[in-house]
């Protein structure tokens, strides 16, 4: 069962990676990055449950990643809002002249 959870984490990471690489919408790119973080967190918790049944370090790391991910998303959305007010588009190809 452990490998199933790891596989789901890997699939989420791959979906997030592909989405952040190929999707043109800025908000979808940010959500894809959150999918990558979710996949990583699932792997952390899975390893903590199955392999580290004493200290649960993976749970702590997942908690930190959740906090940092939320902050990163809030910052990125604010920057996106600032850029959008100048470019008037959500297409990331128009943000190449940063």
């Amino acid at each position, binding site marked *: *069962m452990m490998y*199933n*959870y790891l596989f*789901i984490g890997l*699939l*989420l990471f791959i*979906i*997030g990676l*592909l*989405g952040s690489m190929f*999707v043109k*919408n*800025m*908000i*979808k790119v*940010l*959500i*894809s990055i*959150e*999918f990558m973080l*979710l996949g990583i*967190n*699932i792997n952390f*918790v*899975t390893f*903590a*449950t*199955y392999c580290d*049944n*004493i*200290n*649960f*370090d993976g*749970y*702590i790391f*997942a*908690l*930190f990643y*959740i*906090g*940092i*991910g*939320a*902050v990163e*998303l*809030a*910052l990125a*959305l*604010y920057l*996106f*809002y*600032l850029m*959008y007010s100048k470019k*008037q*588009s*959500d297409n990331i190809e128009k943000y190449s002249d940063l």
Partner: protein
Amino acid sequence: MIDNPIIFYPSAVLIILFAIVTLFARNIIYSMLSAIIVFFFGALFFYVLGSEYNAIIQAAIYGLAVPIIIGISIMFCSPYSKKEKAEGKNKFLTPYLTILSGGIFLLAFIYLVLMSLAMNPSTFHYLGNLQVNSFDTIWTFAKGIFINYVWAFELISLLLLIVIAGFSMLKRRGI
């Protein structure tokens, strides 16, 4: 920890399906709603794996707070202009996406039926040899945050404080 295939396989199929829908949905609101479902399924996975605290944090932050931020940013930006709507992008992608989603559901259903036919009924119950005590989990959480990783915890608190101060400074400067 709840090691139950009946919970895992449908949840796994749905989380992957909604993650794909998030990327390919034409309307950004549907994309955001699919992302909320994915985050809630992530919380479900955390709960099933025995980490109730992470599940609550995940559901509270990613299931409720983050979608509000995304929704507000969508509201401020209104990314889909009339011009882009008129262009009709991804018009030819919808049938392929429907076929792909239906195929994934069909494969998952066949796999689930075969698994349930071949499964031993004892696997429907909690596993006796691998259980996580909830009280021990909370205790180890507290020990990890406040003893083992207290510097990382303080560093993240400082990071959050810097972010709040930075936001207020940017707002004051009128950027």
